[in-house]
């Protein structure tokens, strides 16, 4: 079978699963007792393994398989999660990610993961370093951990059995590693069990066991008249059985399981089910709706959202087709008003509304939540804090804020850099924080929100803030500013120096935020996206990097202006205001034309002259329309002939053939089908 057609689907889904694994592992790290999370992780890993095996990526499949073995022990309560296990699992995820990336790049997803595999196998064998006392033994965990989840119905059955004087056992059966027909052995065990009592629930489910979809062990809840010891001996009688543990449950130990089940069905993974927190087992109503109770645990976590994946190129084609449609619409409107037929006019009006709605939808298709970028940060911050030996909480808000896909794709790297910067340079070490009278755990806020036509992404830490002296000293040393200039600088200007090329306050270039790239690269990247980044910092209190981004790269609000017979668009984001000035107000200052604007003189630039417009010359005009534009805190006035009005325009590039033209950043197609050039105001302010 040709697998190529499934490859992109495989890659997409693998990435989804890896993301979900990462997220859930983080969640589990926060509340290690929550076995419902382990279930979700296990399922994800299992699916990933299956997919990888089907696609023939053996290395990927076998590594996932080893992870599953570990997770299986955890979810069956035979292994307590601890730091070493987390680290190993995270390492495995990284390795898996690298493999998937290799596959994405056309490779075969092969990687040497023998050390990780060795670690995972050691964990399965119970050889966990640094926590010798916690090494899992077969008999211990039942008291310490809930072995697996029961739904309410099963719980009440078991509870009643105990009250009626039956034995309720939790039995764990391990087959010998050299066992050839595992399903058959399992069948023999079940047959034996059925003879003396009733099996209530098995892990993995019976169907999986029958199809040999288990490794070498399975566990089950069992109701019988026999004692735990008797059952253990009986099962050991079956050949090729390595080990059997059988534990008798009483109402109390069962109730712990019950609470876990209730917590899971209520989908409250944040509150960890603790033994004895809630009083009586009767808290679980026996008459709970059975169907829902059974289904709920399986559904909690990871319900797939109803989406399809679309190639961004196809969306671009759709956009182009749509803009053609809009042009035709304008033509039709014109024709309809010429012909003056009521029916035609009505039809055209209806078409206008429909195409307007269509335009909205297509624009929205390109918007994706910043979530897709943000979701990799918690993991990154976790690892980074570890390697820096700092304590930090990353608080993300506004992850649902939507941005154009093209912006979202590009914004990841700058944000990574700023976050690393916040953790490396911003948040202090634990001892420094305590000395400064702060809590030992620092906080980094990552927030996104809409404001007007922009989206803001802020990275705020509660660290030491930026030291003005340190920045200035470093800047002087590197020759970026002179000592005189430095002394005259405001704090804000000093902070902006961080963005100067070749600037770094770090004494030693660290692996974390060094990497040979400075904040200047971040700034350049953000500027290239049409955005801006500002620093607010209070010494001792922390620093806030505020990144301002346009909602979309392809559509902007612009002012259309006329120069003779030509039309141009000026992005609204750079316009301060528009107005009319008298010729006499334009003065010559040192050979340059200036006009007074709000108490200061700003340069006047004649667009007509710069663009050699043939049929427009304002020099004879009494009054001239001006557009005051801004770049940073510098202003300039562009003289134009007329304002046409404000419009949402679709930005198009001018193709690869044309050389870069000073003052022109692209083109757009107007309602009449004509191309209007988009002015790049930055070029007019030096």
């Amino acid at each position, binding site marked *: 079978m040709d697998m190529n057609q499934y490859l992109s689907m495989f890659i997409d889904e693998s990435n989804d699963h890896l993301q979900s694994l990462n997220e859930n592992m983080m969640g589990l790290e926060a509340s290690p007792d929550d076995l419902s999370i382990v279930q979700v992780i296990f399922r994800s890993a299992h699916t990933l393994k299956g997919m990888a095996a089907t696609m023939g990526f053996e290395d990927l499949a076998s590594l996932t398989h080893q992870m599953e073995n570990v997770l299986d022990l955890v979810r069956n309560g035979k292994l307590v999660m601890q730091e070493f296990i987390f680290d190993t699992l995270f390492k495995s995820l990284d390795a898996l990610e690298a493999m998937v990336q290799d596959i994405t790049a056309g490779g075969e997803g092969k990687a040497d993961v023998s050390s990780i595999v060795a670690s995972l196998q050691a964990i399965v064998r119970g050889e966990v370093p640094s926590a010798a006392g916690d090494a899992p033994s077969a008999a211990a965990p039942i008291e310490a951990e809930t072995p697996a989840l029961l739904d309410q119905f099963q719980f009440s059955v078991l509870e009643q059995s105990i009250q009626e004087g039956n034995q309720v056992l939790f039995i764990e059966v391990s087959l010998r590693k050299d066992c050839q027909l595992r399903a058959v052995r399992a069948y023999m065990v079940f047959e034996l069990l059925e003879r003396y009592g009733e099996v209530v629930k098995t892990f993995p489910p019976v169907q999986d066991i029958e199809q040999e979809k288990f490794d070498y062990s399975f566990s089950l809840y069992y109701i019988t008249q026999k004692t735990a010891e008797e059952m253990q001996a009986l099962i050991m009688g079956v050949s090729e059985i390595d080990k059997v543990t059988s534990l008798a449950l009483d109402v109390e130990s069962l109730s712990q399981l019950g609470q876990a089940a209730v917590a899971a069905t209520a989908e409250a993974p944040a509150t960890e089910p603790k033994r004895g927190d809630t009083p009586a087992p009767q808290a679980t109503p026996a008459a709970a709706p059975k169907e829902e109770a059974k289904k709920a645990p399986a559904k909690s976590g990871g319900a797939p959202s109803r989406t399809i994946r679309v190639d961004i190129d196809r969306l671009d084609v759709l956009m182009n087709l749509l803009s053609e449609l809009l042009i035709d619409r304008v033509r039709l409107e014109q024709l309809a008003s010429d012909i003056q037929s009521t029916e035609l006019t009505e039809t055209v009006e209806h078409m206008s509304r429909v195409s307007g709605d269509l335009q909205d939808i297509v624009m929205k298709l390109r918007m994706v939540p910043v979530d897709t970028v943000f979701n990799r940060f918690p993991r990154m911050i976790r690892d980074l804090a570890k390697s820096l030996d700092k304590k930090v909480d990353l608080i993300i808000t506004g992850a649902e804020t939507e941005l154009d896909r093209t912006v979202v794709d590009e914004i990841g790297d700058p944000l990574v850099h700023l976050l690393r910067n916040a953790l490396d340079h911003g948040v202090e070490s634990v001892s420094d924080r305590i000395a400064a009278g702060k809590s030992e755990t620092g906080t980094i806020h990552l927030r996104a929100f809409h404001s007007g036509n922009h989206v803001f992404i802020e990275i705020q830490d509660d660290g030491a803030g930026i030291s003005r002296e340190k920045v200035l000293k470093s800047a002087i040393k590197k020759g970026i500013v002179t000592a005189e200039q430095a002394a005259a600088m405001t704090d804000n200007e000093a902070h902006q120096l961080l963005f100067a090329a070749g600037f770094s306050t770090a004494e030693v270039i660290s692996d974390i935020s060094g990497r040979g790239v400075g904040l200047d690269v971040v700034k350049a990247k953000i500027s290239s996206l049409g955005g801006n980044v500002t620093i607010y910092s209070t010494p001792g209190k922390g620093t806030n990097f505020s990144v301002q981004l346009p909602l979309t790269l392809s559509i902007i609000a612009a002012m259309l202006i006329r120069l003779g017979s030509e039309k141009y668009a000026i992005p609204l984001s750079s316009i301060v205001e528009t107005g009319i000035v008298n010729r006499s107000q334009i003065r010559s200052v040192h050979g340059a034309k200036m006009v007074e604007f709000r108490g200061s003189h700003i340069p006047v630039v004649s667009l007509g002259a710069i663009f050699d417009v043939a049929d427009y010359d304002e020099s004879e005009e009494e009054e001239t329309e001006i557009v005051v534009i801004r770049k940073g805190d510098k202003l300039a006035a562009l003289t134009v002939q007329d304002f046409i009005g404000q419009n949402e325009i679709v930005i198009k590039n*001018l193709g690869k053939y*044309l050389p870069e033209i000073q003052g022109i950043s692209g*083109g757009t197609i107007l309602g009449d089908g004509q191309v209007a050039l988009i002015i790049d105001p930055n070029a007019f302010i030096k």
Partner: protein
Amino acid sequence: MAEDIKVIVFKLGTEEYGIEVDKVQTIERLMPITRVPKTYAFIKGVINLRGVVIPVIDLRGRFGLEEAEHTDQTRVIIVVVNEMEVGFIVDSANDVIDLNRESIDTPPEVVGGIKAKYLDGVAKIGEDRLLIMLNLSEVLNKSEIVQLESLEG
């Protein structure tokens, strides 16, 4: 045994030129052109070709010929070369012919005042029809344009 190629035939003045058909995207009637300031004189500006902004070149201007008035026959040939989409304004374009590669000769030193390097060769069709095959990558070579400009300047 050389294979046949399909060639779009267009005219500049009295000369007939050819472009291989697989380099040509479409042939359009002249449409409104938006002037782009601060470029070479032969770049007439940009057009909207079904939602895509494409620069157009006056091929006469590019070859240093005298520019002609645009007429009913004037066409814009949209070509794609090295991922560049460009429109050529030509006097007329109304023929597609099959050409055997063997019938294309290397270009003579000078043909109609156009530098030989813009030409791939000259094909003889029938008795007295000569078709000048264009070397599109050279026609669209930007580094060469810069050189030309500085020489003229």
